[in-house]
């Protein structure tokens, strides 16, 4: 019920509003309490108080009060608006939209409510709603150009290009005279309209529009690029050639311009002479440039290639460009080019380089050391690996230049490739000590320590470059600075050690960072319009829609799902890592181990709590300076996360975006199967299988899953719903025909892929799965995979994991592997 206030309280209420606007929160609460003393059920005042409370970080109290305010005054737009704002802060956008809608129904003229609603609709990509809101806002204020542009964006993003263009044109027609050239908003709107026209596919018209208005636009480069692109796509070759030449004169390093120029000139892709001549022309014009020298190496072959790459390598080595190898290695996908490069640089160090006469001693030295460094990287690289030589060359380079960080770094990397994480971390730490002020080498050292599961040491290193007074210390700062790589590596290191609580903690940390990025766009829905930078805004909105396609997300999510699967299969891990081979223990021993793990967990919790107390005491003074109250993490060790009742359900949070956006990733699909299969979601499980099958029908993981699924279908624990059975059987028949028995299927897979270690492992796993008695034979066959010349260290590691899973003895396998890779630390059992 609305309650009128007496004039004195009325003015007090206004005071509350003013206090809120001026961010005098404490004062605001005091004043609100004054009003509420006399009018305890005054909804609007309660709502304002709730809003202030939520800004003070007391969201629970705020919500309770906000609800009460609503109960007391359902007919006030203020209570509804505040209710929406509270939901908005909780990031519950759907509910917030509903609340705003109610508020708007009560007070249809309120611009702020309308605007809040529109922004949320955009955030939620409710385009139809957004169009409605934006139309209303335009009707209220047609004089503001941004309202017109916003409506155009709404139509554009909802897919109605025609309407979007019409809105922009309608506004332009009302303009009397052309706005000045310095009018940024006009310039951007013009170009925006041009991109819309181009998106309709009518390039003719887009070009015409661009030629008519483009010369007045501020973003000259964009106009030039768009024009060149249109001309080329329209087949107006000679003009396109001019346009791309003009672009190259601005920036002769952009390879896209070269591509455009070549197409415009109509040079055939296999006419290497003509192509080289074209690039040479640009080399002459820009003798200091790189692109025109480097790109021809991609297409040249044989003797031509040799000459060109020789000149390129010598030039760069003489200058001592450290990034040379990074620039060259993409050529190695062609083995003959790889061999040419190798022979050339080996020749240089043997003294065959065509040295310019009279070059000084130190110059020679630099050339030599650069060549050693290049070769060290060359022999480290996957496609040209020979670690003995790599070590040899890197040692030579270090000998000549012992203070160089890069050379020492390469040495560490060589150890990494040897599979020796311990040595690698040590050597990288040495590299770090060569330049303690260098952040790059600092992070490298930390990363190598994480790869060696030394989480504490790594954090210690990182802390040299973080703001350690942040809440949560160095780790807190790494979260705040959104250091995704570190958190992911840290989580993966914990996962390797089976410390699932901390692993999950880190993965959730990264997940939240992605959430923040999603959230960050909110400000731009209004900000970009005010600024008039709409093209960049539209790009950003589209980027946000595919945010979780990012490889960093995929990598983290894959690890997180693995952690949850592990937790589901071995619930004891919730209490911390239990000694390897816990399956082999009897009940009594298991209980003992569990107890020990629990004790350890409690001890760690206590240590962490003490640390927090100490920090709090120290930070008591510092906090007031910053002026902000930061919430202390109530679960720094991730113990709440790990003690979940439903690990598979929690895994869905990571899995869903992965399957929606990165569906071509076979690892995502196979993991999806693992989760759905355990949750008895047969339809979804078979969907993942079908998708994985479409990507790579002979994937080893998929093979094992097909066997498992078929067996589960053959002997269901409870009968399937007939509709589900129909769908699942029909789809699965395509992947694994019923006419084939499980054994036949497995055997034919083995014969078809007997040269690949991973495939053989999968087939052996299949045999083990179908027949437990075949274990001895399987172990023998697994051991034999190590005889293959091609087997990689990572594949051998997978074999070791397999033995673990079977509960077999690993000693013989590990010993044989160690003989094959004596430098590695991965096969040392302890």
């Amino acid at each position: 019920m609305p309650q009128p206030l007496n004039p004195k309280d009325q003015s007090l209420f206004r005071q509350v509003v003013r206090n809120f606007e001026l961010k005098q929160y404490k004062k605001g609460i005091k004043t609100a309490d004054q009003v509420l003393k006399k009018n305890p059920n005054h909804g609007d005042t309660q709502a304002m108080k709730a809003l202030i409370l939520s800004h003070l970080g007391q969201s629970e109290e705020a919500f309770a009060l906000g609800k009460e305010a609503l109960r007391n005054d359902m007919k006030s737009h203020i209570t509804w608006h505040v209710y929406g704002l509270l939901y908005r802060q909780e990031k519950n956008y759907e509910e917030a939209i509903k609340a705003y809608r109610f508020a708007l129904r009560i007070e249809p003229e309120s611009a702020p409510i309308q605007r809040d609603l529109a922004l949320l609709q955009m955030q939620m990509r409710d385009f139809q709603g957004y169009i409605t809101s934006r139309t209303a806002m335009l009707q209220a204020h047609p004089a503001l150009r941004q309202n017109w542009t916003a409506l155009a964006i709404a139509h554009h993003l909802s897919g109605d290009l025609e309407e979007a263009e019409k809105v922009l044109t309608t506004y332009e027609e009302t303009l009397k005279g052309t706005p000045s050239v310095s009018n940024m908003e006009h310039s951007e709107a013009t170009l925006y309209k041009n991109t819309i026209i181009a998106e309709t596919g009518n390039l003719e018209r887009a070009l015409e529009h661009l030629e008519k208005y483009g010369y007045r636009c501020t973003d000259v480069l964009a106009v030039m690029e768009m024009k060149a692109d249109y001309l080329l796509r329209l087949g107006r070759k000679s003009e396109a050639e001019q346009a791309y030449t003009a672009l190259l004169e601005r920036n002769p390093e952009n390879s896209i311009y070269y591509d455009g120029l070549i197409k415009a000139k109509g040079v055939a892709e296999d006419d290497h002479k003509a192509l080289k001549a074209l690039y040479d022309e640009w080399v002459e014009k820009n003798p200091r440039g790189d692109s025109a020298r480097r790109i021809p190496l991609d297409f040249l072959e044989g003797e031509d290639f040799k000459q060109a790459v020789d000149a390129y390598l010598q030039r760069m080595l003489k200058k001592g460009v450290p990034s040379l190898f990074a620039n060259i290695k993409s050529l190695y996908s062609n083995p003959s080019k790889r061999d040419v490069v190798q022979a050339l640089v080996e020749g240089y160090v043997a003294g065959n380089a065509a040295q310019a006469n009279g070059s000084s001693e130190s110059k020679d030295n630099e050339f030599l050391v650069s060549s050693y460094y290049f070769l060290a990287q060359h022999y480290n690289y996957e496609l040209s690996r020979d670690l003995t030589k790599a070590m040899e060359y890197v040692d030579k380079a270090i000998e000549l230049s012992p203070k160089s960080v890069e050379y020492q770094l390469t040495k560490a990397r060589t150890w990494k490739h040897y599979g020796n994480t311990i040595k690698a971390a040590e050597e990288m730490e040495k590299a770090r000590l060569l330049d303690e002020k260098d952040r790059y080498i600092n992070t490298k050292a930390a990363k190598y320590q994480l790869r060696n599961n030394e989480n504490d040491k790594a954090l210690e290193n990182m802390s040299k470059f973080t703001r350690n007074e942040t809440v949560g210390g160095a780790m807190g700062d790494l979260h705040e600075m959104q250091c995704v790589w570190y958190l992911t590596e840290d989580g993966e290191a914990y996962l390797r050690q089976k410390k699932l609580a901390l692993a999950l903690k880190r993965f959730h940390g990264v997940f939240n960072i992605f959430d923040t990025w999603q959230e960050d766009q909110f400000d731009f829905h209004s900000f970009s319009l005010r600024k008039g930078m709409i093209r960049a805004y539209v790009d950003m909105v589209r980027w946000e829609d595919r945010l979780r396609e990012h490889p960093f997300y995929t990598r983290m999510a894959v690890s997180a799902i693995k952690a949850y699967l592990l937790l589901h299969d071995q619930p004891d891990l919730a209490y911390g890592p239990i000694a390897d081979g816990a399956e082999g223990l009897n009940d009594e021993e298991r209980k003992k181990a569990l107890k020990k793990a629990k004790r350890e967990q409690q001890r760690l919790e206590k240590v962490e709590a003490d640390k927090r107390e100490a920090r709090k005491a120290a930070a008591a003074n510092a906090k007031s300076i910053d002026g902000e109250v930061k919430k202390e993490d109530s679960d720094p060790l991730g113990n709440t996360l790990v003690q979940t009742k439903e690990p598979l359900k929690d895994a869905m949070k990571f899995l869903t975006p992965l399957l929606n956006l990165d569906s071509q990733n076979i690892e995502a699909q196979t993991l999806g199967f693992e989760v759905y299969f355990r949750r008895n979601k047969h339809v979804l499980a078979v969907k993942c299988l079908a998708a994985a099958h479409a990507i790579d029908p002979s994937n080893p993981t998929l093979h094992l899953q097909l066997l498992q699924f078929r067996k589960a279908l053959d002997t269901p624990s409870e009968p399937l719903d007939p509709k589900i059975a129909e769908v699942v059987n029909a789809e699965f028949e395509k992947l694994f025909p019923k006419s084939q028995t499980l054994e036949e299927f497995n055997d034919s897979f083995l014969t078809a892929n007997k040269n690949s270690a991973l495939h053989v492992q999968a087939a052996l796993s299949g045999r083990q799965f179908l027949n437990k008695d075949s274990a001895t034979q399987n172990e023998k066959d697994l051991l034999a995979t190590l005889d293959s010349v091609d087997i990689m260290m990572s594949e051998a590691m997978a074999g070791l994991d397999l033995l673990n899973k079977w509960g077999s003895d690993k000693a013989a396998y590990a010993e044989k592997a160690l003989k094959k890779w004596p430098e590695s630390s991965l096969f040392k059992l302890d």
Partner: protein
Amino acid sequence: MSDPIPSAIADPEAPERTLPTNTEDRKAAAALLSLNQNAIGTEASPTGGPSGAEQEALGKAMSRLDIAGHQKNDPVTKKVVKITVADVSFLVDQLELHKTKATELLRSNDGDVVLAMKAFISPSF
């Protein structure tokens, strides 16, 4: 109650601006915001608001848009498909879809659950 304080929560920017999580960003955003508000303030009312003629032109433009908009909004008759609640909730459970998505899926498959599931699981690439 005729509300004398439509500006009560009138500054919607205030709650929004608290969004960026790190302090520096927040400060920068606040600074930019204040810049912009000033700019708009002066831009929107250069000499006491747009002139009458301009207003008129904009109003006309609006109405032109409206007409165009209405023409476009001819109701597209949707195909009538019978969909049962039980089928929808079955799909929601089995395919873990949102209710609206599940309904859509059923509708585009003539309300047949089995067809809908088959369509849903076949790989899209």
